[in-house]
């Protein structure tokens, strides 16, 4: 059983989606995360164990390698694709309530900002860490964030801005969210954002990379 989990984990880490996927060449013609997850579930491994012992460690290794510049955006996206192919089988267990997530994370880029790659990477890493992710997309208004936060009490909010010209909108959104929900945890990121800016606008945490966001969520979930 451990061997099967290990194989799923490797498939996710290196982006082996399914039998047909040509990457990585070393795993050619072998089953991928999609098939192996099905086999694991059918042989009685619980969805929670697959998540905890295969997916989360795999995505964590991916995040760490990305932080160290050992892998790059396309490799991270491949890993996320493999993770998603595994999640197809796990999702029904979440929906039925049989397996629980660690919490809910609402994410989007702020008003006026259309750059979504960083935001997408954070969203997939956090999903890979066992959280439910509500991705509101790009150019998200403050009202939309508030409306969604109302639907998911206790959710953590993540805001992304890639331009100095949209950082001002990040400040506005944080201020409005704070007015309504004092204790809500707010995470900020994006190329021009700094730890000082995070403190100044009253957000809770700044991370320069996706793995840092995952670590922060881990620290507050405990």
């Amino acid at each position, binding site marked *: 059983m451990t061997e099967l989990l290990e194989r799923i984990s490797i498939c996710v880490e290196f982006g082996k989606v399914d039998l047909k996927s040509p990457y990585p060449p070393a795993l050619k013609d072998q089953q991928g995360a999609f098939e192996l997850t099905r086999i694991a579930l059918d042989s009685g491994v619980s969805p929670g164990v697959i998540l905890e012992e295969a997916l989360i460690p795999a995505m964590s290794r991916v995040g760490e390698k990305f932080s160290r510049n050992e892998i*790059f*955006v*396309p490799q991270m*996206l491949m890993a996320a694709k493999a993770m998603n192919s595994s999640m197809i089988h796990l999702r029904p267990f979440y929906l039925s309530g049989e397996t629980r997530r660690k919490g809910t994370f609402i994410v989007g880029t702020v008003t006026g900002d*259309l750059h979504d790659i960083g935001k997408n990477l954070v969203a997939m890493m956090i999903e890979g860490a066992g959280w439910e992710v509500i991705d509101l997309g790009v150019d998200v208004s403050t009202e939309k964030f508030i409306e969604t936060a109302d639907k998911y009490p206790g959710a953590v909010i993540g805001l992304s801005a890639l331009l100095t010209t949209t950082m001002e909108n990040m400040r506005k959104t944080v201020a409005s969210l704070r007015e309504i929900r004092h204790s809500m945890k707010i995470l900020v990121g994006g190329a021009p954002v700094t730890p000082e800016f995070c403190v100044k606008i009253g957000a809770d945490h700044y991370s320069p990379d996706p793995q840092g966001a995952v670590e922060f969520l881990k620290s507050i979930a405990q």
Partner: protein
Amino acid sequence: MKTVLSGRSKEVIIDTEGPVIIIGESINPTRRKKLASTLQEKNFDYMLSVARSQIKAMADVLDVNVGFPGVVDEELLPQAVIALQDNFDIPLCLDSPNPAAIEAALKVARGRCLINSVNGEERSLQRLLPIAREYGAAIIGLVLDDDGITHDPVKRLKIAEKIIERAVRAGLREEDVIIDPLAMAVSADPNACKVTLETIRLVHDRLGHNITQGASNVSFGLPNRENINNAHMAMSIMYGLTCPIANPEKISGLVRAADLVLGRDDYAVRFIEHYQTTLSS
């Protein structure tokens, strides 16, 4: 088709037949953190030194973006424009998402500026086209609209057509609309650059307009970024890009080489001039 910009007195002609004109990208606090801190103190010395090194590296036009949190760019952008024009006679490209800042800068600017940018959103067209008309500015038309960003080159072409048509109806000359085909990161979408290149080809072949693009971001999320940027830039020029917004210190050599390869530089005069200028500095 020719788009004419000017500084205090110097004219720069962007011609669809080439050669490539470089719009220097570096006056932008997103790319240079030191700019934000010095501009905040209304100290323009650093900005002027960034301008000077870009001009030395053969920038033909300078993009000016001074937007960052805590700044009223309706005040700062015109001040930056005055400081630049007091020192340099180079056309400016006014870069702000805030139409009020663009308008305030146009009020004080001498010569003929370029507005960066108008897009196909109704709000953007209605607000910015009359301003461009009033101050006689040229515009960059960014091919996204109220439906957001499309990944279909034909739809991007349609948005370009719409922007041009609306600009002409607002009283601008057709040649004063430079199209930005929208460059996106190839790390997140393997077809991103191909879509942009195809859009450039369509705009060039069907509309014949000048084309710009801020393309340093196509390599986001990958190593050896310069190789990717250079490959994308060379192919873009081949398809019809005429005035990239880029860092002249990194790109002028490539641009001169591309013009030479495309037969736009007889006796390699400009290419050799660039080589000798950079050799001596």
